C-alpha cells in the first residue's frame, strides 16, 4: 500500500495542476483579448471620453488582479465583456468627436456672423434713412420694394436679438440658425437697395 501512495499522490498533484492550468487558460486569453481591444480604441477615446476609458482600464486591472490571485473564474468573468465594452466606447468616442466637430463648426460660423451681421444691418439702416429723405428713388428701386425693406427691418433686428439671446443661453445651433435667417434677409435687402453685399455674406 505504501508503495502505491507516492505515485497516487503524484497523479493527484499532476491532475490538480492540469485542472488549474485548464482554468487559467480561458481567463488568460480573455484578459489578453480585453487588453488588446482597449488598447485599440484607447488613443482616440482618451481625447473624448477619458473617464470612461479609465473606468474600463479599472475593470481590466480588476481582472488581472483576480488572475494574479489565481481566482480564474472571477478573472474570466471580469474580462470577458471588456472587448464589447471597448467597442461601445469607440462608438461613443466617435459620437462625442462628431458633436465636438459640429460645435466647433457652429462656433466658427457664429463668430464670423456675429462680427459681420451688425455691420450689414447698420449699413441697411443708414441707407434706408438716407433713401427716406430722397425726393425720388434711384433706378431699379420702386416704392413698393423700398417699403418692403423698411417694413422688414424691425423683424431683422428682432431676429438678430433673438439669435444673440440663443447664443447667450448656450443654444448655439439655434443661434446660428437664426443668424443665418438674418443674413439671408439682410442680403436680400442690400440687393434690393442696390448695395454691395459683403463677400462673407455671400457664402
Amino acid at each position, binding site marked *: 500500500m505504501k508503495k502505491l501512495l507516492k505515485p497516487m499522490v503524484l497523479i493527484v498533484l499532476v491532475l490538480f495542476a492540469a485542472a488549474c492550468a485548464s482554468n487559467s487558460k480561458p481567463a488568460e486569453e480573455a484578459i489578453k483579448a480585453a487588453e488588446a481591444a482597449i488598447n485599440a480604441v484607447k488613443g482616440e477615446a482618451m481625447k473624448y471620453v477619458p473617464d470612461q476609458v479609465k473606468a474600463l482600464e479599472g475593470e481590466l486591472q480588476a481582472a488581472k488582479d483576480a488572475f494574479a490571485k489565481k481566482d480564474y473564474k472571477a478573472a474570466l468573468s471580469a474580462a470577458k465583456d471588456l472587448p464589447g465594452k471597448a467597442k461601445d466606447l469607440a462608438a461613443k468616442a466617435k459620437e462625442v468627436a462628431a458633436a465636438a466637430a459640429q460645435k466647433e463648426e457652429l462656433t466658427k460660423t457664429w463668430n*464670423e456672423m456675429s*462680427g*459681420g*451681421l451688425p*455691420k*450689414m444691418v*447698420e*449699413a441697411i439702416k*443708414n*441707407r434706408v434713412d*438716407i*433713401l427716406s*429723405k*430722397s*425726393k*425720388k*428713388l*434711384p*433706378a431699379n*428701386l420702386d416704392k413698393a420694394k423700398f417699403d418692403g425693406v423698411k417694413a422688414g427691418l424691425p423683424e431683422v433686428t428682432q431676429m438678430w436679438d433673438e439669435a444673440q439671446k440663443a447664443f447667450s443661453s448656450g443654444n448655439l445651433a439655434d443661434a446660428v440658425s437664426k443668424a443665418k435667417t438674418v443674413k439671408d434677409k439682410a442680403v436680400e435687402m*442690400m440687393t434690393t437697395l*442696390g*448695395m*454691395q453685399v*459683403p*463677400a*462673407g*455674406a455671400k457664402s
Partner: protein
Amino acid sequence: MAEEKTDAWDATQWHEVKKGDTLWKIAETYYGDGSLYTKIFEANRDTLKDPNLIKVGQKLRIP
C-alpha cells in the same frame, strides 16, 4: 464701383470716381436724389475737403 476691403464682412459700399462724375451725380445714382450728395461728402471727410473737388480714380464710401 471698386471693392476696397480686407474684412470679408465689411458692408461699406465704394464708388470709384469716373470722368464726369460729381458728388451730385453719384448721389443721384445711389439715392435717386442729387441733393443728398452731402451724405457722401460727410462720409468721406477724411479724404474730401471740398465737395466740388473729386478726382478720377478716387474711391468714395457710399453710406
